């Protein structure tokens, strides 16, 4: 047993006091200690994207980072994106487009999708960006490449792309 550490995490705008073993990942802190179970554990090794959350507005795999490393950061989970009565446009689009089947990967897909549109808006290039010096275009190809860190074993990919394109302003 490691010595426990006391620290504060700011999640979805609220402060949470925690006393945890330093081995606890951000993912396990969210799910097991704060009971924010919207963020899912899939592979627990950074390959599936089910655990995607935003830290200071940027998407990361919460399974590959320690909770204690995020003292002072602004963490956003699927619970902070929207509520059942007031869905985020990306959540609504996934519903409208049936962008899931079993739903397990969906919170991670949605968090990643929100960040993808932000990244394209900020001009972050991707592997499929033809002119790396220009603003990346908003195409299906770009969205697909940027979403490759989120797996969906039900293969809802076509409807996930459609949902993201709805939010981004329609087909190219």
């Amino acid at each position, binding site marked *: 047993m*490691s010595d426990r*550490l006391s620290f504060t995490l700011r999640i979805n705008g609220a402060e949470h006091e925690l006393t945890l073993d330093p081995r606890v990942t951000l993912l396990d802190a969210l799910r097991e200690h704060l009971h924010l179970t919207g963020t899912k554990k899939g592979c627990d090794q950074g390959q599936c994207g089910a655990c995607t959350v935003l830290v200071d507005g*940027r998407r990361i795999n919460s399974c590959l980072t320690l909770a204690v490393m995020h003292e002072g950061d602004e963490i956003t989970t699927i619970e902070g994106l929207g509520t059942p009565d007031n869905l985020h446009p990306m959540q609504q689009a996934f519903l409208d487009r049936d962008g899931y089947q079993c739903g397990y990967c969906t919170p991670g897909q949605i968090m990643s999708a929100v960040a993808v549109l932000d990244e394209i808006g900020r001009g972050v*290039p991707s592997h499929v960006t033809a002119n790396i010096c220009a603003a990346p275009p908003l195409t299906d190809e770009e969205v697909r490449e940027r979403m490759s860190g989120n797996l969906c074993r039900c293969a809802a990919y076509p409807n996930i792309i459609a949902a993201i394109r709805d939010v981004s302003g329609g087909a190219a």
Partner: protein
Amino acid sequence: MKAFSYERATGVDDALEMVAQPGAKFIAGGTNLLDLMKLGIEAPAHLVDINRLGLDAIEPTEDGGLRIGALVRNTDLAADLRVRRDYAVLARALVSGASGQLRNKATTAGNLLQRTRCPYFYNTDMPCNKRSPGSGCAAIGGLSHNLGILGTSDACIATHASDMAVALRVLDATIEVAGPGGARRAIPIAEFHRLPGDTPHIETTLQSNEMIVAVTLPPPAGGTQIYRKVRERASYAFASVSVALVTRHGQVERAAFGGLAPKPWRVDASGAVDDVADAVLAGARPTPDNGYKLDLTRRTLATALADAMRLEATP
């Protein structure tokens, strides 16, 4: 995961003092280290968190190059306008690796220090000289279709997994290192990664009491810059073969390769595809599973040069 103690460093000298204790390791992005710690392959007794040291600036150098802080995240390095314009091969290599989530966390220094993805290094039930020195190499005679053909030894045939490092190698980057007592030294990237020989567990010339503080790029190489990566799926996979190229007038000026060797593999050859391919493949030692990499290297190089000629023709 084995228990460890944790502390957060606030400055480089502070961090170097903290890492001097037995079993201590730095953690930055953590995307590779924590994965290995969960599997028991890495088991530090103490973690020194260096994420709050700063070291996250990209600044011009006096000679017209660029100095990249050790903690600049892969996403931010690839998105930097100077990198995209003047060191396109680096931006291209960065976005061909990992996923968006991982690139947001992974750092410049951590990317250089990542461990191999050899399946036998990851499988703690199997012998591996890199993970457990002297235990043997299960990859030799095992399933080796994605392992190395160049620079390997009878003790280890693992490859270095980084795309970024291949681009840094073709650009002749320098690794800036801080050591105890204010010591500073610069390591050319050619001398940073070691070949396995009979000590595959020693992967770099960085000492355990040292820390990378920056990576420096010389003034832009110009020419047309290409990074072409061949992998087993279209995205988010390690290279079977990759090539970082600088071309001029339809000829290869500089070339470095990934997916073939325990370090980014630069070849001292230029000119036509066959000349460069012959030079890089001289001394190749493929296994029965990965002889395909000989042809694939030649074809990847040819395709990358064709890409470059198309770019050269675009005004």
